[in-house]
């Protein structure tokens, strides 16, 4: 496939690996956080860590929307379907995420709730158009990449007068999460020397919103594509910045990301959403100004207002280390549940559900087994 295969080329990978090995000073450790779950997935799938010298380490970040969604929000969504009898439309990624009391969207569906798996927000609109007698709720989640498609759906519903369509909004923003990771880094948190910045989030918001990382925290950022060679080249760019004592925002993913991003998508988001004062992130707690709700002019399409639901605070599965893993403080293999009771077939925590979660990546590509055998 064009724009994919050439960024997985083995010969180029070897050259980049050699350059990294030559330029990383053996005397220092480079701890590079890949923010996105997409990067984590690529690093494990293609064995990028194995191509790095031992002193260049990837630390896995919280950039997996499914992983950071608090269990209570899934309970809330299930309650919309079971108590209010709505048709709940969800992206497939969310279907198996454990909710409170060992429930999930998939189990609720098996028990009779009308929960549909959709590929696009256009599918949710179509379902609403087909049966005007049913209330249809879009379970909207995701970072800035997935937010503009929700905005388009909201605007379409308004212009078509689709009275039976509404949105349960859980969209979150990447810069506040990056800020909390960096401001808690230190003795209790994780030590980071550089950040591989989001790729497709940045196609929308551009590279400018990360300036604060360099300016306030003195850490270099390289916006990195999701293919293995992108990750390797970005690691090399970070190592060069660290060696030079520079802290700048650089863009490796220039074929898709510009400084200003997608202005049309940003304008849509600006119009349709407002900032929430605070929102809970699994593993990171309540973060101010880190999430979106529908703007006041669209509040008639807000499922939280249309269908009031009281949800009890959810309790994490005992022993599940997802919260610490999401902050980069622990690794999946530090969790007692990992690979014993918690596997992708029977996930206890969200990091084992999404293929972008660190636990699922560790498990699926089996690299922890090699490490155990060698160690």
């Amino acid at each position, binding site marked *: *496939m*064009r*724009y*994919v295969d*050439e*960024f997985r080329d083995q*010969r*180029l990978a*070897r*050259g*980049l*690996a*050699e*350059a990294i*090995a*030559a330029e990383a000073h053996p005397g220092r450790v480079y701890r590079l956080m890949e923010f*996105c*779950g*997409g990067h984590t997935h690529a690093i494990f799938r293609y*064995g990028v860590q*194995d*191509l*790095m*010298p*031992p002193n260049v380490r990837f630390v896995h970040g919280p*950039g*997996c*929307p*499914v992983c950071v969604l608090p269990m209570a929000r899934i309970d809330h969504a299930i309650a919309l379907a079971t108590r209010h009898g709505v048709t709940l439309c969800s*992206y497939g*990624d969310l279907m198996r995420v454990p909710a409170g009391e060992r429930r999930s969207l998939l189990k609720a569906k098996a028990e009779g709730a009308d929960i549909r798996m959709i*590929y*696009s*927000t*256009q*599918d949710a609109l179509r379902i609403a158009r087909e049966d005007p007698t049913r209330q249809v709720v879009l379970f909207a*989640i*995701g*970072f800035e*990449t*997935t937010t*503009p*498609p929700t905005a*388009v759906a909201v605007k379409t519903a308004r212009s078509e007068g689709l009275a039976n369509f509404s949105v349960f909004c859980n969209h979150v923003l990447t810069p506040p999460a990056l800020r909390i990771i960096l401001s808690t880094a230190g003795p209790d948190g994780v030590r980071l020397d550089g950040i591989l910045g*989001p*790729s*497709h989030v940045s*196609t929308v918001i551009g590279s400018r919103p990360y300036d604060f990382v360099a300016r306030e925290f003195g850490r270099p950022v390289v916006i990195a594509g*999701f293919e293995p060679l*992108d990750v390797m*080249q970005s690691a090399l760019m970070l190592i060069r910045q660290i060696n030079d004592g520079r802290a700048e925002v650089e863009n*490796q993913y*220039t*074929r*898709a990301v510009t400084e200003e991003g*997608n202005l*049309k*998508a940003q304008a*849509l988001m600006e119009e349709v959403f407002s900032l929430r004062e605070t929102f809970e992130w699994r593993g990171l707690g309540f973060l101010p100004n880190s999430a979106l709700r529908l703007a006041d002019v669209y509040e008639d399409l807000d499922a939280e207002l249309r269908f009031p639901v009281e949800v009890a605070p959810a309790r994490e599965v005992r022993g599940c280390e997802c919260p610490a893993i999401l902050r980069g403080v622990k690794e999946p293999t530090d969790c007692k549940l990992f690979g014993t009771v918690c596997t992708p077939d029977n996930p206890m925590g969200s990091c084992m559900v999404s293929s*972008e979660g660190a636990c699922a990546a560790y498990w699926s590509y089996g690299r922890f087994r090699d490490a155990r055998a060698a160690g």
Partner: protein
Amino acid sequence: MCLAIPAKIATIEPDGQTARVSLGGVTKEISLALVDEVAVGDYILVHVGYALNRLSEEEAQRTLALMSEAGVLDEELGVNPPIPGSAGGEA
């Protein structure tokens, strides 16, 4: 979740709002609501049924060129350390 896939625009509907792309041999209809000025033959990033951005062929070539330079430079300098985990592999 944030995964987006490169795809080539095969056709654009007369209203300019929808396009057909080929994804791994499967033709899919996607929305153009988030992009301006795309044409048949352009490569775009597709995310949950929407075109997010147009890909720049020029920039892609530049990135690939930088990648190959990184390797060549080391060979020229005669620096050729073994790659961890690839003991015995040819350099």
